[in-house]
């Protein structure tokens, strides 16, 4: 079902900042939306307000056009999976899954049928008689998923359900959640601080910081066209190389960005937007994947010295010092340069990002959109 947040505010009086600062958001029916942000950004508080576990100071919440702001959690027709809790310890797996059905006084036969059907869906039908001691962390989280599904909620809320699992299991369950979403066609709202998780899961990513929504977009949009410096820095691992700089516009119309120790030219297509911004202070950025090793000098090429190489598998992450600035550069492992060696870096203008130094908003967004 469609979820709409309108002017939602939550202020825990104890903290310095407002937890959720008048946010507006629409999540469409059947969408898998991911609330992404660092800890304390308000993503969990937002989710808990949708669940009814936290009461907003002001603003309204609608699910399928129904104002649920003042309803008790149990009357909202939502389900929630938590990070640090998965199974009621005094009940076995079967009773855990049946638990929400007892609340609506479903008859025993119907309960049995539903529990077995849902258990099959998350592959725990062979665990039904097990007690909480006999299930692993991953299985317990599947029980939590089953318990969430069993009442066919209108909206699934998930608060970092995978954070306490080990890496392999996390990836496996991530895939299953995605599949579950496709099979049920229900609206999912998933909270995480893990941007990789957000990218792989989300139809729509809502990046939050300090109680504000920074950007709403598809995984590609938040990765390739970050609306501000925060999104650019937060999304992507290893994170974007970012430096302070200033613009220089030549008579001919060529635009350069002056960085500590060197200067790079921006592509011609940025010309229109930046022509009148000479000596404007900016934050310049480029992703490690967009820097290339080249053998012959040319435009936008800068020499550097490799300081450190981290193997990522098929690719290497090199840290290259250029004029006292350290750049993360991702290269094919076969092309890697050993630490201590000199190399020549090429910065691809098409993949550069520019943000206003003061507002931190992107200066290129419109141009990139045009170019795309």
């Amino acid at each position: 079902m469609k979820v709409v947040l309108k002017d939602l505010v939550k202020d825990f009086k104890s903290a310095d900042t407002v937890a959720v600062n008048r946010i507006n958001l629409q999540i469409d029916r059947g969408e898998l939306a991911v609330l992404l942000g660092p800890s304390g950004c308000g993503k969990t508080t937002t989710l808990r307000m949708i669940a009814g576990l936290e009461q907003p100071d002001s603003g309204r919440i609608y699910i399928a056009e129904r104002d649920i702001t003042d309803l008790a959690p149990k009357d909202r027709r939502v389900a929630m999976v938590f990070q640090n809790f998965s199974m009621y310890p005094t009940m076995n797996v079967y009773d855990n899954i049946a638990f929400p059905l007892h609340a609506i006084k479903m008859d025993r036969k119907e309960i049995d049928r539903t529990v077995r059907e849902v258990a099959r869906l998350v592959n725990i039908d062979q665990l039904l008689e097990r007690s909480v001691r006999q299930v692993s962390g991953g299985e317990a989280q599947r029980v939590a998923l089953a318990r969430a599904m069993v009442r066919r909620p209108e909206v699934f809320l998930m608060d970092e359900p995978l954070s306490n699992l080990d890496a392999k299991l996390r990836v496996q369950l991530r895939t299953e959640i995605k599949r579950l979403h496709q099979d049920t066609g229900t609206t999912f709202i998933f909270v995480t601080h893990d941007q990789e998780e957000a990218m792989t899961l989300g139809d729509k990513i809502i990046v939050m910081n300090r109680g504000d929504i920074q950007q709403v977009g598809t995984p590609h949009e938040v990765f390739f066209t970050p609306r501000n410096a925060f999104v650019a820095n937060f999304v992507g691992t290893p994170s974007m190389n970012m430096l302070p700089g200033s613009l220089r516009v030549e008579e001919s119309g060529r635009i350069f960005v002056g960085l500590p120790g060197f200067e790079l030219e921006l592509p011609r297509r940025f010309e229109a937007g930046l022509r009148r911004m000479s000596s404007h202070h900016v934050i310049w950025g480029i992703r490690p994947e967009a820097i290339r090793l080249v053998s012959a000098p040319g435009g936008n090429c800068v020499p550097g010295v490799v300081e450190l190489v981290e193997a990522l598998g098929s690719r290497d992450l090199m840290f290259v010092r250029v004029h006292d600035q350290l750049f993360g550069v991702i290269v094919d492992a076969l092309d890697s340069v050993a630490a201590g060696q000199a190399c020549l870096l090429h910065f691809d203008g098409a993949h550069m990002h520019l943000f206003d130094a003061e507002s931190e908003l992107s200066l290129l967004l419109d141009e990139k959109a045009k170019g795309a």
Partner: protein
Amino acid sequence: MVVPVRERVLSYAILIAMAVLVLIPVVAGSLTAFKPQIIWISSPPVWFFEPTLENFEFVLITRQNWLHLRNSLIISIGSVVIALILGVPAAYGFARFRFRGSKGLMQWLISLRMIPPIVVGLPFYAMFLFLERATGLGLRDTHFGLILTYQTFLLPLVIWMMRGYFVELPAAMEESAMVEGYTRIGALWRVVLPVVWPGIVATALLNFIFAWNEFFLALILAGNNTSTLPMAAGTYIVRARVEWGNLFAVNLIIMMPVIVLTIFLRQQLVKGLTFGILE
């Protein structure tokens, strides 16, 4: 965990020495309870004799101490039940909600537990007397009066102990139940209480022991109708004479329920007092 043999021998030696030290008076006294009067205080003490129940018959029937037993049971069980009914929800509240003055209130409650009974005994007597004169509501020499007085000591203990158990549980446990169709009370009842059940048993037992053993407040506030077993025991220490056999017979009656309960609830007790860390 494997403990080296030497350490194990040493720790058992210390434990046995401590147990012997503690148990000698208990065993000697309990034996005396079964001795006929002529050998109560024989010197050297007699260890082998034909046990008799005449002391128990005397205290329970002749001296009607079964009435005291009844009073003790009513007052102790009543105190514990009321302390749990009031204290468990209060403890949950302290564990889950922060409100104006919640921290100070908690500290005040704990400090109540540290007051020596002698400090509250006389004021309670005065209050009961005043209440009786002002409203005609008599609390002196009633079971309820003592049950009420004992809450001064039981409630803080219940709240403090149970709060500890509730704090250990993730709030997501009942929040999960609340999203799944239950009210907070329903979630507490169906999900949280079953988990903290061993804690409730441990709390109940410790509180029962306090109320069951309590002597001083009963001495001040109880009367002919409500006099408890510890007070009955006191009646066998008269003038220059102690009726050892009768005294120990009552003592054994006092000790029995505590020992039996502890043995019966041992598993729950260990779980409750350690919160499962020994499993």
